[in-house]
């Protein structure tokens, strides 16, 4: 399979896949064509560049590759009657951020930081598949441990958890605007 065909075929595979496609999966699919990891990376690279200035872009999310519409087209797409996810409240976002940064984390630990009851919020995040149960903590009482899901990465367009700004970066951000803090809500 020549380079151009491989690029087209990778595009077609991503186009029909409902979820982000990991590189390992592409290796399986294109194994019979003799395309190795390096060839696939190159094809993905070519595909990404060829989508410059288009309505759709190639993104690396949740450990895989996915075609997505560009953020600047959101106003137009908002007019379509696509089922939209329910908005996340501030409580949900805070809890999600905590779980993302501190996982594996117990409910008690989340509540210690937020200072409020978090049971309902956690349940909502579980229902929406953004948070999952990781197991039980090996301490008396064996509380449940929570962590984020691949869907969380997908929803927020993150290739992996390491793409989240580090807490150090957050601290720096806070340092520069600590004075003029206002409650964005």
């Amino acid at each position: 399979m020549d380079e151009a065909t491989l690029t087209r075929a990778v595009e077609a595979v991503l186009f029909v896949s409902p979820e982000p496609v990991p590189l390992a999966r592409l290796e399986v699919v294109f194994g019979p064509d003799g395309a190795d990891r390096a060839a696939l990376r190159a094809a993905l690279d070519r595909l990404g560049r060829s989508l410059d200035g288009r309505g759709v872009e190639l993104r690396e999310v949740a450990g895989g590759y996915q075609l997505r519409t560009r953020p600047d087209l959101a106003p137009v797409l908002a007019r379509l009657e696509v089922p939209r996810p329910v908005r996340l409240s501030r409580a949900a976002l805070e809890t999600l951020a905590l779980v993302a940064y501190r996982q594996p984390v117990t409910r008690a630990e989340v509540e210690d930081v937020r200072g409020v009851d978090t049971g309902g919020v956690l349940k909502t995040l579980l229902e929406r598949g953004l948070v999952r149960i990781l197991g039980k903590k090996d301490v008396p009482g064996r509380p449940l441990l929570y962590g984020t899901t691949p869907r969380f990465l997908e929803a927020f367009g993150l290739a992996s958890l390491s793409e989240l700004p580090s807490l150090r970066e957050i601290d720096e951000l806070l340092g520069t605007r600590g004075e003029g803090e206002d409650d964005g809500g």
Partner: protein
Amino acid sequence: MTQDDRHAILFEEGHTYKVRLDGFEGPLDLLLHLIRRHRYDIYDIPIARILEEYLGVIELLHELYLDVAGEFLVMAATLAEIKSRMLLPSPREDGERGAEEGEDPRAELVRRLVEYERIRAAAERLEERPRLGREVFSRPWRAPDLDGLDVPEAPVDADLFQLLVAFKELVDESPAEFVEEVVRQRISLQEAMQDILEQFRRVPGAGLSFRELFPPRPPRERLVATFLALLELVRLQAVRVVQAAPFGEIRLYAVAGDEEDAGG
């Protein structure tokens, strides 16, 4: 934003107040707001003044006949307690400022405030990201030309939470008798197998008699689980069964090295 502005917002929002102070996610959020607005140093909070401010907001809500969520009151109590501890004479005469860090009654509160502020900022950063289904869209359906067979070896797209929801609904619809049984049902096959292997580990090389495997007068579930676990271990060739004479005592021996496989 001036203090009056903020109170005005509290007034307006107060009408829809139900569980918590509207606009504030909790006492830490409110406290941070007060600290930041007055540009107090978060590591050197003037507790007396902050307490006064904090109580002012709470009182305002009382005047509006609004219930203040318990966690806000707990924080008020915490602040009051810190204030009183700070009024106590310091063990060192040279005053609060020179006091050792570990002795500062505010330390725990500061730790929580700093951590909460971080997470709050992290949440804001999350919120700013283009969200799938909100600003950006993928093609989340399965292309029709790909509908094919479900291959049994296919990985299972499983989610423990879904499993729990399914189970909870079953339990809710079931007679109490079933629920009790589930509650009692604490011993699993895997655990029973682990237990047996653990017993062997305690008597390395010696083996066990069949009867020794079972605790005295075991509950029925325990009996069944232990027996099935034994069968499974024999099947996995992790345990060898020896009966020296017909109708003689059955003795069991662990087969070295197979424990990991058997453990599941």
